[in-house]
């Protein structure tokens, strides 16, 4: 950065000098005097590091920001009815009821004289197709999810706003009509006292993942071997059950390796519910990998490779296995769990939880109710993972989110890694270019509002 700073100063000094020479050779009044040039150079020298420092912090902030899953519960399903009127709040409209307005157009000629003319123009009102539009939302502990907005009501033909205008087929299909099935199901779940889980990607800081030098990251040599054998699943991506919705709502966080059980949906539902409560209460996010024991010869090598793969920026970018993640690997022999490994997304913390998962899951039957549990928003169940994560039997195993800066919590945290997060050459080049552009504004300012206007009797010297 220091080299970039020196280059920016030299380029700015040179550019200012060239601009000055150019302006001196022109007949226009805009000039840069030598006093202005020196004064401008001092300003550039002092201001440029501030600009570059600010830009650097911005880029570092971007480099240390990653995505993690937050989990929560549905709270209520809400519906909004929008009454439509001409030029009103409704979105599905057409141009109607033309009217004339007089518009003034002005032009300025070469001599600086301005002339204006007034001409009539046709404008239109905006008329809705129907008398009301419906919007559907699901309120959750993670905030509001929009299911669909500005839909037509059921039987829109019976709600036509102006009887002489029918709704075009393309408008009808793009707007949708009636109550969306997804919203209705959520509404039914909430009404029956059994709300469903939701998940959402949120941003957070992680200096460990951003650092290229730390020894605290998981490294493994076997990623390629396991990947080519088809044993490394991809980390959970968003599933979008809401039509046309850009947000995630659910994500499958149970991964089967070498197994294809019939009741996969049951596992997905169980982990979704576990995560909903786990996220709401302890800000965690469980990912459960269930592998055929015969497919995994050396479980430690496999587990290291899996974690390293899921924290590989080239594979998952900003969506790598996050700080709040709990990764559990169980291998199944017959209908029993025979080996277990567990870890969190952080290199320290929650060791009691990890150890308890390893010792208590072994020997359990391959059943989501036994392994995960049947969590609801109101009650805990007897699932072993649930029991360990919440520390129901032993409070020392209760999951605790590990802090990154640890400003509020006290302690050292991982902020020491911030200093060694480096910018790549492309970022430094962008910073230098922006700093150079800002420095050029100084010359522009001196050229237009400089000394020769304050002291017009002086010549440039």
């Amino acid at each position, binding site marked *: 950065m*220091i080299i970039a*700073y*020196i280059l920016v*100063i030299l380029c700015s*000094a040179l550019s200012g000098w060239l601009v000055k020479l150019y302006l001196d050779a022109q007949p226009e009044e805009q000039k840069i005097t*030598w006093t202005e*040039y*020196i004064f401008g*150079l*001092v300003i550039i*020298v*002092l201001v440029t*590091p501030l600009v570059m420092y600010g830009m650097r912090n911005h880029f570092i902030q971007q480099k240390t920001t990653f995505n993690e899953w937050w989990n929560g519960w549905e709270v209520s399903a809400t519906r909004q009815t929008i009454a439509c009127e001409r030029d009103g709040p409704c979105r599905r409209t057409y141009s109607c009821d033309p009217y004339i307005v007089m518009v003034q157009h002005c032009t300025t000629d070469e001599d600086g004289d301005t002339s204006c003319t007034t001409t009539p123009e046709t404008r239109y009102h905006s008329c809705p197709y129907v008398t009301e539009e419906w919007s559907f939302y699901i309120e959750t502990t993670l905030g509001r999810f929009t299911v669909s907005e500005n839909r037509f009501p059921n039987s829109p033909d019976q709600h036509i706003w102006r009887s002489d205008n029918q709704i075009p087929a393309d408008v009808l299909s793009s707007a949708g009509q009636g109550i969306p099935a997804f919203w209705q199901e959520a509404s039914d779940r909430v009404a029956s006292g059994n709300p469903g889980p939701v998940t959402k990607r949120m941003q957070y800081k992680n200096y460990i993942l951003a650092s290229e*030098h*730390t*020894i*605290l990251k998981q490294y493994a040599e076997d990623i390629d071997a396991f990947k080519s054998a088809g044993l490394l699943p991809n980390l959970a991506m968003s599933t979008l059950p809401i039509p046309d919705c850009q947000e995630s709502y659910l994500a499958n966080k149970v991964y089967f390796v070498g197994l294809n059980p019939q009741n996969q949906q049951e596992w997905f539902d169980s982990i979704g519910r576990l995560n909903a409560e786990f996220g709401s209460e302890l800000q965690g996010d469980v990912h459960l990998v269930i592998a055929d024991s015969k497919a995994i010869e050396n479980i430690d090598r496999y587990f290291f490779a899996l974690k390293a793969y899921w924290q590989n920026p080239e594979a998952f970018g900003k969506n790598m296995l996050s700080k709040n993640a709990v990764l559990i690997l169980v291998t199944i022999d017959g209908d029993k769990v025979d080996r277990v490994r567990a870890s969190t997304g952080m*290199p*320290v*913390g929650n*060791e*009691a939880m*990890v*150890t*308890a998962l390893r*010792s208590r899951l072994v020997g359990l039957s391959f059943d989501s109710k036994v392994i995960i549990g049947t969590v609801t928003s109101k009650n805990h169940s007897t699932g072993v993972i649930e029991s360990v994560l919440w520390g129901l039997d*032993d409070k*020392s195993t209760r999951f605790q989110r590990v802090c990154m800066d640890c400003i509020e919590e006290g*302690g*050292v945290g991982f902020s*020491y*890694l911030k*200093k*060694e997060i480096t910018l790549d050459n492309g970022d430094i080049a962008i910073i230098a270019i922006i700093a150079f552009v800002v420095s050029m504004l100084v010359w522009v300012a001196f050229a237009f509002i400089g000394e020769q206007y304050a002291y017009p009797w002086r010549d440039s010297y």
Partner: protein
Amino acid sequence: MIILGVIAALGIGIVFAFVSWLMGMYSTTVTMERQLNSQYLSNQNYLSTYISGFYEQSGVLVAQSDQLDRILTDAVKGRYDGGFSADGALFSAVVEAYPEASTTALLQNWSKIQDYIVSQREGYKNIQDKLLDMLRNYDTYRTAEPLRAIALSIMGFPSKNLEARLGTTMTTGEVARNQMYLIVLTKDAIKAYESGVMDPLKVPTPTK
């Protein structure tokens, strides 16, 4: 006159940049040293908490002895590599060091104790790794760039702000840095590093 002005302007810039650079470096390095001090003490505190936690886990009222403390510390540092089962070496050592009346309670809670020791051992390894990472970070910052290395060396880093406290004794500067690098190793591990040879691990047998 004009040339002098330009030189003065550039001179101001260079001095400004140089002073900012020195102050930033000093501040960063002192912050790193303070963080190392805290982490070093925190790691010692972890070991201490582990021992007192063991008594709580085992359900036996104090009856602490230096011998038992040593056994527990050895366990968390990796002395009992073969495992912590009730017929293993660790259990035998703990029973020997414990008053006779406590053995039953120990047996009842052994599975829990076993998990406790394993997790604390893993936790201790993790925070030792973190301390090593912080030392790596500190050394890299001080030495990776030649100009910075010279400047920091002239400023006297590692400075007296770097403190390695061990009970009532305290070392500072380079000695403290070396002390922090002193990672606890088992006798077997030291022997293996010294000789370049390591025997295969043996399953521990109960001692009588």
